[in-house]
């Protein structure tokens, strides 16, 4: 019978496992052999993770800062923070998919009052908000209203993107306009001159999340138009609305760039920076782009020196603005709700928060009133008018609440299309008003 020769140098199965266990199990202090010997599973510290979904900021330095802050907090708290930044128009669909499938990001950013559509799917963050409110001088009214549903905060107000008019002073002067119009009628009259010179007023009434809402709502409010009364009944079909629509047709034809019906939120920026338009309702992004990229005007001088920031013109009911609020919500499906709350508290702490706002170059303002005196406004003095008109806003759904259906009116562009129907000539003001009333009643159910 042949003798089995055993070579001591040969790697047996037992030897291999022992070696592998020593090599990989040293950190755990056990190794596979140790596990087999002790008959106990090894204990490893589970790494926590946090997934934060927000928009791709129109101020790129703010994007860089939020990533840095996420990294910093993550290292301090041994949490793997994953920050995902996407196009703002895609945020609602991502949020819907996550909430319905009960898996996804742990913190989601919402605009306007979008998160109120998700009812009880969001964690109550009243504790965070009331603490911030008392510490930092209270919230701006509409930002607070947008973040609340049924008396509780379902999201933490994070920032506000303010919108007023951005104007080329030299274009106004070249057309003989001596000052910014104070009323819509003055804007129509002066804008007619600017349009004749090839530089009309630029405004979108297209299907986009920001500029279209920022113009439409305060324009209608300035004519005394309300979607609902304070009892929640649809009252859009009023003589004020008809007057606003008829005037808008005249304003559009006389003073505005007809291409605006097809613009998105970046189109007016490009049009302004390329010298195509005299004025547009916008956030500070136009000024910041012109400043950061050192864009020159037709005479070779820095374009920023020719930019004015001025309030919206007024209508029969006064002057109004709409600045869209941004808030952070934690879905109830999240298994990391407590770390998410800790992270938001840390982000809103003065040290981090002021860094975010200042490094964002004051593109976003704060919903906390104490920050209206922050040094960032002295760092960017040209943007002070955005702060000066920050409190002159209302919530969507006015005079009713900023509830889920008010968010649906925004998301389905009902009031924006009411203006677009008239601007493009698709409907007469009367037809468009009837159409909008039907749409609002089908959403509000009244």
């Amino acid at each position, binding site marked *: 019978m042949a003798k089995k020769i055993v070579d001591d140098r040969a790697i047996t199965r037992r030897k291999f496992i022992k070696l592998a266990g020593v090599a990989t199990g040293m950190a755990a202090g056990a190794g596979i052999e140790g596990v087999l010997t002790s008959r106990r599973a090894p204990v490893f510290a589970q790494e926590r993770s946090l997934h934060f979904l927000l928009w791709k900021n129109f101020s790129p330095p703010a994007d860089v800062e939020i990533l840095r802050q996420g990294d910093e907090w993550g290292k301090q708290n041994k949490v793997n923070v994953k920050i995902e930044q996407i196009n703002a*128009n895609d945020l*609602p*669909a991502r949020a*819907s*998919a996550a*909430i*319905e499938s009960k898996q996804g990001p742990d913190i989601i950013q919402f605009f306007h009052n979008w998160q109120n*559509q*998700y*009812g*009880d*799917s969001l964690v109550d963050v009243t504790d965070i908000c009331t603490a911030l409110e008392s510490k930092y001088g209270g919230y701006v009214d509409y930002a607070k209203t947008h973040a609340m549903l049924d008396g509780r905060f379902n999201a933490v107000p994070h920032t506000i993107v303010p919108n007023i008019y951005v104007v080329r002073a030299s274009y106004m002067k070249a057309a003989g306009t001596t000052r910014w119009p104070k009323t819509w009628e003055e804007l129509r009259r002066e804008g007619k001159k600017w349009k004749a010179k*090839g530089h009309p007023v630029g405004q979108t*009434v*297209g*299907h*986009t999340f920001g500029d279209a809402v920022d113009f439409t709502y305060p324009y209608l409010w300035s004519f005394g138009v309300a979607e609902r009364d304070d009892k929640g009944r649809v009252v859009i079909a009023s003589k004020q609305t008809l007057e606003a629509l008829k005037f808008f047709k005249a304003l559009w034809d006389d003073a505005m*760039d*007809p*291409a*605006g*019906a*097809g*613009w*998105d939120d970046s*189109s007016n920026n*490009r*049009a302004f920076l*390329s010298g*195509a338009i005299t004025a547009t309702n916008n956030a500070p992004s136009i000024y910041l782009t012109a400043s950061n990229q050192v864009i020159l005007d037709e005479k070779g001088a820095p374009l920023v020196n020719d930019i004015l920031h001025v309030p919206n013109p007024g209508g029969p009911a006064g002057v109004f603005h709409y600045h869209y609020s941004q808030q952070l919500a934690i879905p109830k499906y999240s298994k990391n709700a407590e770390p998410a709350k800790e992270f938001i508290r840390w982000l809103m702490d003065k040290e981090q928060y002021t860094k975010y706002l200042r490094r964002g170059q004051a593109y976003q303002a704060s919903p906390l009133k104490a920050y209206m005196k922050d040094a960032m406004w002295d760092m960017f003095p040209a943007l002070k008018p955005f702060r000066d008109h920050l409190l002159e806003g209302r919530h969507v759904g006015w005079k009713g609440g900023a509830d*889920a259906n008010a968010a*649906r009116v925004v*998301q*389905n*562009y009902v009031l924006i*299309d009411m203006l*677009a*129907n008239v*601007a*493009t000539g*698709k*409907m007469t003001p009367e037809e468009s008003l009837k*159409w909008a009333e*039907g*749409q609002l*009643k*089908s959403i509000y159910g009244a």
Partner: protein
Amino acid sequence: MKRNPHADSLPAARTSARSKISLGLLERPGVLGYLLMAPAAAIIFFFVTYPFAWGVWMSLTNKQIGMPWSQVRFTGLMNYVDLLTKDGVFWTTVWNSFVYTGVATAIKWVLGIWLAVLLNRMVRFQRMVRAAVLLPWIVPTVLSTIAFLWIFDPDFSVINWTLRRFYTWMGWGYVKGPLWLGDPTLALASVTFVNIWRGTPFFAISFLAGLQTITPDLYEAAAIDGASGWQRFWHVTLPGIKPITVVVLVFSIIVTFSDFQIVYVLTRGGPANSTHLFATYAYQVAMVGTRLGLGAAISLFMFPVLALVIIFQLVYLRREQA
């Protein structure tokens, strides 16, 4: 070698008998056929039938995103009734969808046949030209549509820029150029154009394959009988590619009717809902506006139309086979 006395023992005999039975079952077409079909059927069930049935169910309820199922109520056909009687955007969407599909399919058909006939006649550079013709079809839709976003931009459009230069050169003064995505009619025409640009290669390559099955003897015989080029095309080419035409038309109608990407990238349904199709409107209502039940009802309106198209194709093909 001594024979194992247990060679014919029961376990071995059972195994052998079982093997014979299994082989016998697998040799029966009725069993083997279903077995081989099972994976595909499972995929279709889980990824098509189940979501479809779920969509039908949701369309009969008041389901919203995040709403617990305990609060979901059966509402019957109310979503459908509301769409038909209260929603002005829905009827605009219906009109847009039929116009978009009808116009795009008709033009793709004509251009597809024309390109196929040209490609069939080419002798030199045939492979290169065929590859070039396929490019619009191969490039991811969203990427090519983003390029069209720039082509249709009112201030930076290459078309408008060229027009302005031409007008200035001719001394006709300044012209802004067409509002490709700002005028409701032009916006619908623009999205239709992008669909035609993208879809024509599919028609062309499919018809080219069909043309190459037509025997040249038929053309020679027709030529000998004195048929003109147009007569040969009408009486030989078109009948020859009839079967492939039906298949291609049906597929194209289905895909075009349910299109989403082109409209979502270019206009998101604007301006003033003039470019909304069923898919984009359902998306806006369900995913953005969180009304899942209503959104499901919108998308299900496509089903009867597409079902009729498929039934027509099946009936036609069966008649041809008979």
